[in-house]
């Protein structure tokens, strides 16, 4: 009865993903436990030295910094993005426009947007020029190549990812629930914390994930806005495969990133399945 064989449907996609995603990952796993070769590649053998190297405070520091920055960026995006999502969900006439204005940056080149930050923050950039011109400062502030710049870049880059899922959640919110709460004596702040926030939690979790995970693996932002000093784990990995020429260590570092990512995803699934009603997943 089948005219289109299921194999035909699955075949190409599964093959491609298997050959060019799964297999490479396995190779990286293998490389991470092999000793470093002369030219930076691998030699036959088995060793856990690369993973052990991670316990070196230097690298733990990078790992920790990455998590802290990604977390901070996520928190900032949440605080800034939630009101935006709220406003869009509430608006009727301008909703399409407001959505488009949030979606547009999402589709715009990440490089271009990061460069916009550079243009603003550098010593000869717009902010410094304005402040100097207005006489508020006498020498340019070092804004670029600081942790602040990286954080700003992360927030700027990933904000739309936070807004859209929260908006989707809020849009489904039944206004009758708020009216019911009001009728039962809840004031605006109470209504927010007891009705709106819990019911928009799936969107908040999704949005947080969509910001946190790419931020963890971020490379471009810290490279362009942070310079050599603000190293995140993404930069570390890239470094091992280019200048530092230590592929096995880079592979181990990659798995460290993946581990962080999977933990974040796992936690978010657990929280999401707890449900808006707070009940543990059935």
């Amino acid at each position, binding site marked *: *009865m*089948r*005219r*289109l064989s*299921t194999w035909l*449907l*699955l075949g190409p*996609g*599964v093959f*491609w*993903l298997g050959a*060019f*995603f799964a297999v*490479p990952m396995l*190779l*990286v796993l293998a490389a991470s436990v092999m000793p470093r070769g002369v030219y930076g590649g691998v030699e036959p053998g088995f060793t856990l030295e690369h993973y052990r190297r991670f316990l070196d405070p230097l690298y733990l520091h990078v790992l920790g910094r990455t998590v802290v920055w990604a977390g901070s960026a996520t928190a900032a995006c949440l605080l800034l*993005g939630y*009101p*935006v999502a*709220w*406003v869009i969900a509430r608006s009727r006439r301008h909703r399409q426009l*407001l959505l*488009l*204005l*949030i*979606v*547009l*940056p999402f*589709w*715009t*080149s*990440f*490089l*271009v*947007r*990061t*460069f*916009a*930050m*550079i*243009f*603003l923050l550098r010593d*000869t950039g717009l902010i410094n*020029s304005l402040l100097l011109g207005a006489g508020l400062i006498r020498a340019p502030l070092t804004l670029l190549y600081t942790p602040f710049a990286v954080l700003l870049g992360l927030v700027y880059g990933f904000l*739309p990812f936070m807004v859209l899922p929260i908006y989707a959640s809020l849009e489904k919110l039944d206004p009758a629930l708020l009216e019911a709460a009001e009728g039962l004596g809840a004031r*605006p*702040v109470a209504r927010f914390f007891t009705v709106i926030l819990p019911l928009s939690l799936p969107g908040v979790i999704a949005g947080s994930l969509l910001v946190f*995970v790419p931020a963890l*693996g971020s*490379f*471009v932002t810290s490279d*362009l806005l942070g310079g050599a000093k603000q190293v995140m784990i*993404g930069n570390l990995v*890239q470094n091992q*495969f280019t200048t530092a020429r230590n*592929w096995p260590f880079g*592979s181990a570092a*990659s798995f460290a990133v993946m581990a962080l*990512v999977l933990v974040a*995803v796992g936690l978010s699934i657990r929280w999401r399945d707890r449900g808006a009603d707070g009940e543990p997943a059935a």
Partner: protein
Amino acid sequence: MKRLVWWVAGLVYLLLHLPVLVLVVFSFNASKYSVRWTGFTLDWYRRLAEREDLWRGLRASLIVGASSTLLATVFGTLLALALARRRFAGRRALEGLLYLPIVTPEIVAGISLLVLFVAIGAPLGLGTITIAHVAFNIAFVAVVVRARLAGMDQSLEEAAMTLGADELTAFRTVTVPLLWPGILAGALLAFTMSFDDYVITSLVSGPGSSTLPIVVYSMVRRNVEPTVNAISTLILVVTSLVIWGANRLLRERPLATARG
């Protein structure tokens, strides 16, 4: 309280778009180094046109973008159909595993492919870039199309069958027309991600196979002239037009006639 929310939202919108607008404005500034406005000029755009590397980069990006989008869209759509309409062993697992390429950080995906290509001795060039782009885009397309299929009333295809259409005909006359906006959206996403990609591309490209983002990246790093502003503006304008056009084209079509 309500006031505060609106103010914050307004501020965010402003801060989201202001930097880029500033970028655009200053692409027309005659002054090379400072941000003082010294006059309107199209010089920087003229300089862009003279840059061979940019044209080559654009060409490379378009080739890679078009071919990788085509493959990723076809494979991803077929995958989504299989997940939505067929029952097979490991379906649940596949559905979950499909998110793995999506959450994997680009740096990890990039180096893993580099390791693969080096291990099998494949020369790095537009071919390897295309393979890489297809790999991470299949999952995105599959997820987008899958979502669209999920909202589609399955009894539509069954109804077609009771009216004498075999599986292929039902697919052609009912499924595809209704799925089309989803497929298009997936393709658009795939193309944009391919065109804009830096990290993965930089790792699996060889000498002479630089795509546009790679060229722009080195320009940004040196960030000296407003030529960078000019190329940024162009990218911005083209992207915006494409998005606006796609938005008009993909007016939501109902996927099922709601009851009552």
